[in-house]
């Protein structure tokens, strides 16, 4: 046997293992979720009633789906201006200067902070601030979670778009400058169109990360199993309700939690597919 073949088999086995694990996860999620879907059918997705009281059991995932999507979209909306300006700062305005490298490593550092630390900071610093501003009486809720999520996903949104923006050919920019374009015109007519698909891809990656975030959100969203009525209302997310309630769950409740896990999996998969589709169309 030659080393080429061994390497090939080794790699094949490795990638096959990942496929098996992923397939196994889907299989067990679907298997676990069947009783809930069998009992509630479509109502599981469109019902907003989550009642674990014995004898009145009824489970609907809509409050959690809404909570997850609202907090994640909010996080994305808040993070985009910051992420976009950071990318331009690092990859264009202060490109290859010490300031830019310090800033970009600081942003990367954000990605390394554990989720629980964000949660603590949100609980003891951001929440009192929001209460102080009078935005919400108890400081918990969708808005607080959205801000924390936005900070958490900035590194995911910037790291890739920095690379892409740096990769825009210098010749193009120089050509634009020689035609008398201002810096702003170069950014919006040369850099952004060239880097568009990469930037969108990095924001979608960041959005996917926000969808599944658990710990920090659990600490800040208020764990209130209803659809939030306003940005400052409390709510709950899919990941957070699972984290809160899986410990004691059995029977129909456990199946409903697994079904929520399956839905979260599907939503994340859809977001990633949509992202890939957008990238393909734009490039």
């Amino acid at each position, binding site marked *: 046997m030659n*080393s080429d073949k061994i390497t090939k088999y080794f790699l094949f086995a490795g990638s096959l293992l990942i496929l098996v694990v992923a397939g196994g996860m889907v299989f067990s999620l679907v298997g676990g979720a069947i009783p809930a879907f069998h009992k509630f059918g479509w109502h599981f997705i469109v019902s907003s009633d989550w*009642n674990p009281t*014995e004898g009145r059991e009824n489970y609907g995932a809509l409050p959690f789906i809404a909570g997850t999507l609202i907090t994640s979209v909010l996080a994305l909306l808040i993070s985009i201006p910051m992420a976009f300006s950071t990318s331009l700062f690092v990859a264009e305005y202060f490109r290859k200067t010490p300031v830019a490298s310090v800033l970009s490593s600081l942003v990367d550092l954000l990605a390394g902070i554990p989720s629980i630390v964000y949660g603590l900071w949100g609980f003891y610093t951001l929440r009192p601030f929001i209460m102080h501003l009078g935005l919400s009486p108890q400081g918990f809720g969708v808005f607080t979670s959205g801000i924390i999520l936005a900070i958490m996903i900035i590194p995911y949104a910037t790291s890739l778009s920095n690379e892409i923006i740096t990769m825009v050919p210098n010749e193009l920019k120089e050509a634009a400058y020689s035609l008398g374009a201002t810096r702003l015109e170069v950014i919006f007519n040369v850099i952004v169109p060239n880097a568009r698909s990469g930037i969108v891809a990095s924001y979608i990656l960041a959005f996917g990360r926000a969808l599944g975030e658990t710990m920090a959100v659990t600490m800040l969203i208020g764990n209130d199993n209803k659809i939030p009525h306003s940005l400052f209302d409390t709510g709950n997310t899919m990941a957070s309700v699972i984290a809160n309630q899986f410990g*004691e769950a059995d029977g129909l409740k456990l199946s409903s939690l697994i079904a929520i896990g399956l839905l979260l999996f599907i939503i994340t998969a859809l977001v990633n597919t949509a992202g890939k589709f957008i990238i393909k169309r734009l490039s």
Partner: protein
Amino acid sequence: MKKIIILLAVVTAFTACKSGSKKKGAAEKSAKSEISLSAAGSTFAGPFYKTAFKKYFDQTGVQTSYGLTGSGAGIRSLKDRVVDFCGSDAFLSDAEAAKMPAPVVHVATCSGAVDIAFNVPGIESVKLDPEVLADIFLGKITKWNDAKLKAINPGVKFPDMAISVVHRSDGSGTTFIFSDYMSKISKEWKDNVGVGKSLNWPTGMGAKGNPGVAGTISSTVGAIGYIGSDYAFAQKISFALLKNAAGNYVAPTIAAVSAAGNGDMPADTRIMETNSTAPDAYPISGFTWIILYKEQAYNGRSLAQAEATLKLIDWMLDPAAQAIGKELKYAPLPEKVVQIDKAILRTVTYNGKPILK
């Protein structure tokens, strides 16, 4: 290529040796060390259990780890047979007990009060009657300066501040005691919310465990919630005086909890003592239980393990252990309950033979 194969072989052989020797070491260690017990559940009784188990370790060398998971998760762990016993402030209903893989017994270990704790700057004490309490937790009273609150608290200057209700987000025996009481005093609560370890809450936000609720209340101005007495005491959170069934406003003291627990006790100890008619009783009081399997020989557990489990629980009924509870604001068991508990413990068997003589 040969080199790589040889290298691989050497590495495999080396790791095999290493893991082999490790296993051996672990086996020796476990043979030498004392028996250790594991349990999980109630955060309400957590401070009592943690302190008592530590004292028991100092006296006997038997280590007991107790996970503060909440009663719901504790029962789940017992069901999965991953713990020796669980702590719960909600007893298993006949239907729930039937779902367990084998018969279980309940041993009451102490009783405690569920405090209605609140955080309004400048206000140390508030009186609540059943109607106002129900209205707050049903979301009908939303401001601290509500006329109903003012009416029963003459002289207290309430601020114009929103009430933020805090409840449990996980399955909880504390919630069970609280909702049991609420169902007794409010028809609307009984019809719309009901009794359970986790509920469909009409209002408020959830926090995990008694520590989580206590932390949220103490860091949220305007908050109100229900927590075990020791948590309010330890974190210096103000608590409300509640109007009991006899019409008196009572603080959650040990004496008031004992007064509530002096009623009749069934032979299996499964009873709720909320809304007691005794004149000095604190209305949201409840026993907390240790739940274990009646037949201790399962999953290859040794007789020594079963004996250690039973001895620990038996010791928890001793005056010495009950005194630890008292220091932590739990009411000691009345003598008749201790006798019932001891009788129950004697019915616990290993391969059909009673463990305690």
